[in-house]
């Protein structure tokens, strides 16, 4: 199979306006991935599926990943005036990387028996701009898995034919696989509450009335 760089340049030639980026992977598995802009993701997927050299006709795994806001420390060289002379000094600057949600697709080819090519889509943030393009029109196998990513991560796949909760019940409000999810108190299920649970349970008692 071609390298990811070659695939990237061929996609950029075939799909007008496609913005792609190769995300390296340092683990021994070396499965690097291709970051796709949601606006052109469907066209890229269609190209990957129909291209005679790739024929990635099988979307094996589709899932979501949650990345929280993190502080990244970077070393920056800054020019400063030290003791009257200008010098270059290294300083560590803390940069804030805003969090985002990610959808990851592992594509294989059944016809040519190669793979995986890993596609990623990223949202702008974790709160209100969580829209991504659904690849279900190209890969039907993504249908339930995208529904699951919606259910557990709150990723909204535009163009999905039936985007409902799949594992949690319909009235459920939160997204339980997010890293900052806090489960509700389950004091009711503890027959004899003790320690932490007892403390939580007291919050639910009615205030004592003194006569």
């Amino acid at each position: 199979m071609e390298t990811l760089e070659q695939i990237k340049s061929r996609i950029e030639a075939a799909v007008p306006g496609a913005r792609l980026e190769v995300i390296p992977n340092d683990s021994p598995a070396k499965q690097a991935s291709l970051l796709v802009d949601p606006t052109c993701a469907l066209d890229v997927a269609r190209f990957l599926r129909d291209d005679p050299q790739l024929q990635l006709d099988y979307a094996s795994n589709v899932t979501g990943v949650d990345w929280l806001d993190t502080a990244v420390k970077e070393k920056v060289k800054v020019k400063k005036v030290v003791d009257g002379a200008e010098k270059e000094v290294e300083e560590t600057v803390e940069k804030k990387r805003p969090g985002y949600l990610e959808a990851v697709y592992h594509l294989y080819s059944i016809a040519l028996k190669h793979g995986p090519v890993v596609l990623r889509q990223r949202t702008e943030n974790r709160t209100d701009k969580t829209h991504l393009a659904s690849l279900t029109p190209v890969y039907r196998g993504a249908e339930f898995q995208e529904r699951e990513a919606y259910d557990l991560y709150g990723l909204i796949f535009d163009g999905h034919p039936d985007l409902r909760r799949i594992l949690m019940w319909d009235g459920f409000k939160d997204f339980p696989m997010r890293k900052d999810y806090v489960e509700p108190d389950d004091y009711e299920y503890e027959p004899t509450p003790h320690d932490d649970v007892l403390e939580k349970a007291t919050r639910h008692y009615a205030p004592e009335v003194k006569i």
Partner: protein
Amino acid sequence: MSATTESPPSRNYEILPKADFNGALDGDVLEVSMGPQHPSTHGVFRMDVVLDGETVLKLKPVFGYLHRNHEQIAERTSYLASMPYTDRLDYFCSLTNNWAYALTVEKLAGLQPPERAEYIRIITAELTRLQNHTCLAGFLLMDMGALGTPLMYAFREREKILDLFESLTGARMMCNYMRFGGCRVDLPEGWLEQAKKVVESYPGFLDEFENLLSSNEIVMARTQGVGRLSKDLAINASITGPMLRACGVNYDIRKVDKYGIYDRFDFRVPLGDHGDCYDRYMIRILEMRESLKILNQALKDIPAGPIMDPKAKLRAFKPKPGEVYGRIEAPKGELGFYLISDGSASPYRYRVRPPSLINLTILEDMCLGQSVADVVVILGSVDIVLGEVDR
């Protein structure tokens, strides 16, 4: 019951399901909720079925009754601590689940299990495939109305294999046997001889089973031409395992990825050509015979030696940052694990790619236009385990 007059579903898929109603649609439209306590659903699983008379107009699977967020539980513990929990995914095939997880973590950490461990893994995985397919055949026949007897035949054989698992791992179903870089314990004394006996007696059972059932008139009438699935739709909908091969697609991960040491064994991949329930049943019977071939070779060739990679660490196991997707051919299809490590002791992202759930994507397409009694047979031939569907 609410009576609705909805037309068959139209969705914007590029490959549309084709249903043949033979112009036989009249009578009242009825919405039936099959499950979650229906005996044919093999667990707590529900189908919302819209029926016209006995013909299925619409079918929506509903899951989640057994959901316990396996993935998040795994993200909160160490890598090794979720190994016993993978047993509970597909509780019929705990050893293949263990292998898929161990294989993925080994890819992530760069471990290589020694020769003997690879052989033990193949032997246990193929025994697992044998007992899973045996059970499936029994359950499928029970779904068709052959109450009890074939299932008891199947369970009699399965007991022998579970006895082998018990003497090796200490547990019959929840084996928790593989470790990153090898296996937990070595084979006990006399285990290989016992396994050889089981493997030798198995073709006799398969012949008996096939004599009874494969050309049985009722079995053929209930399964042939029922629940057809086309090649293109099967590939597009990511169907894997015996379901895919029954449509005639030659794709077996044991042959494609050659994980473990599968490239050393001589076996063939059986393929169907109609993609109906009968083909799915026959593929599994034929796959068992191929598994027996692998077992015969592996039990003969297994070398002596260590069973753990000396580089493997059981305590304070922290793989380098990175991500990996690993997959194996589990008896039900492609079982994959997707892991992201951030360098800490627990995985940042832990994802199971469940074959049972994804094989249900086309349940509606297979059932449209069939009678409601066939839905039971079609669901039985998909081979689902709810522990894996809901996770």
